């Protein structure tokens, strides 16, 4: 049988730090268990100021999953109504983890300030 030299002080330090790292990871996982998991609940809202570039109007939208579970294929739609005429745009976020936030930009030919802009999450999949 082959045996190794006794562990040095330096190796004991490495082992102690490693145990601390793993304890931290296990502790964080335990917190995830304890907190319970509410269903996914993504919401969208306009954030920041509208920008105009090359005659087009850029609107930044933030979508946040306020639930704990992950939402997949989150569909976000923006409708701009000016004088009864609706212009729509939509985007998809592949995965949105619990409490995760993503930003996106919708582009309109007409200024959103001239009409009523509505952004909303229109659906998502439960992975």
């Amino acid at each position, binding site marked *: *049988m082959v*045996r*190794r*030299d006794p562990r040095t*002080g330096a190796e004991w330090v490495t082992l102690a730090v490693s145990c601390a790292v793993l304890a931290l990871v296990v502790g964080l996982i335990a917190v995830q268990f304890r907190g319970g998991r509410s269903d996914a609940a993504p919401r969208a809202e306009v954030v920041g100021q509208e920008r105009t570039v090359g005659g087009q109007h850029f609107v930044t939208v933030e979508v946040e999953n306020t639930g704990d579970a*992950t939402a997949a294929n989150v569909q976000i739609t923006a409708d701009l109504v000016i004088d009864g005429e609706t212009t729509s745009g939509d985007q998809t976020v592949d995965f949105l983890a619990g409490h995760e936030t993503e930003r996106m930009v919708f582009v309109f030919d007409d200024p959103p300030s001239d009409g009523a802009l509505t952004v909303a999450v229109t659906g998502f999949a439960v992975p």
Partner: protein
Amino acid sequence: MDHVLASPARGGPDRGPWAGELIGVVRAVAGGLLFGVPLLFTMEVWWTGTRTSPTQMVAVLSLLFIPLLVLNRTEGFRGQRDVRLVDAAADSIEAMAIGIVVAAVVLVLLRELTLDTPVGVWLGKVLYEAVPFCLGIGVARHFLHGGRTGDDDDGDGDGAGRQRIQSGYSEDLADLGATTIGAAFIALAIAPTDEIPMISATMTPAWLLVMVAATLLFSYAIVFVAGFAGQEGRRRQQGPFQHPLTETLVCYLVALAVSLFLLWMFQRGQLPAEDLLTRIIVLGLPASVGGAAGRLAL
């Protein structure tokens, strides 16, 4: 009958225990990088981590320990093999911790993890990405080393280095060729993917500088610190590019050139200069790790 392996202990006979241990840890990090980097550029793994439940995290962490225990009983990342179960178990704990930390650092480097990322996503992404890192650490001693019974750096390394010097061919040319092949070998599978533009889109100039520095550090550590085959011989090689720092820098430039070529080949290089440079630097990370492996292997 019990006997002690006459190996350069944990890093070499003329090194102190702290320096030897540091080299062991660097060897573990290097082994993890060589195995784990390709999976880091796979968005499906990021997504899997995003939707991982705490139960799955515990399962991944627990199941990972089994192959690590087996690997540490036969190879591991230290200069000596772990034969006693208790030593193998201790080294497996260290391998897991090192793998988790390195995976987290590289994911932060790629901006896949930020301060805004929820803790659950941090855990999921890091644990899944840490799997290949940990397995790489488990075979680090054997990886590019060439033998189960042999000792590490000072043993095989000298022999390999002497053979290279005695053969009389241009060391510089050999290193550049090996870097090119190694870089292409790893980066070829990553260059055409959507992960490169995705990661590049999140980069800032300051972050790119951090990435360049980290890539150079990884490359230097793999070739000149980790104690893999040929290290001591490499340090004695003669030639304009054979100083460790010069070689690391020149080979990084070669890896960047390979990255540029591959982006062009896969028609992903038709961009403004700044964007193209960003993609080259992002792809340069796995290419440099591959280049370092190439210099050790060829």
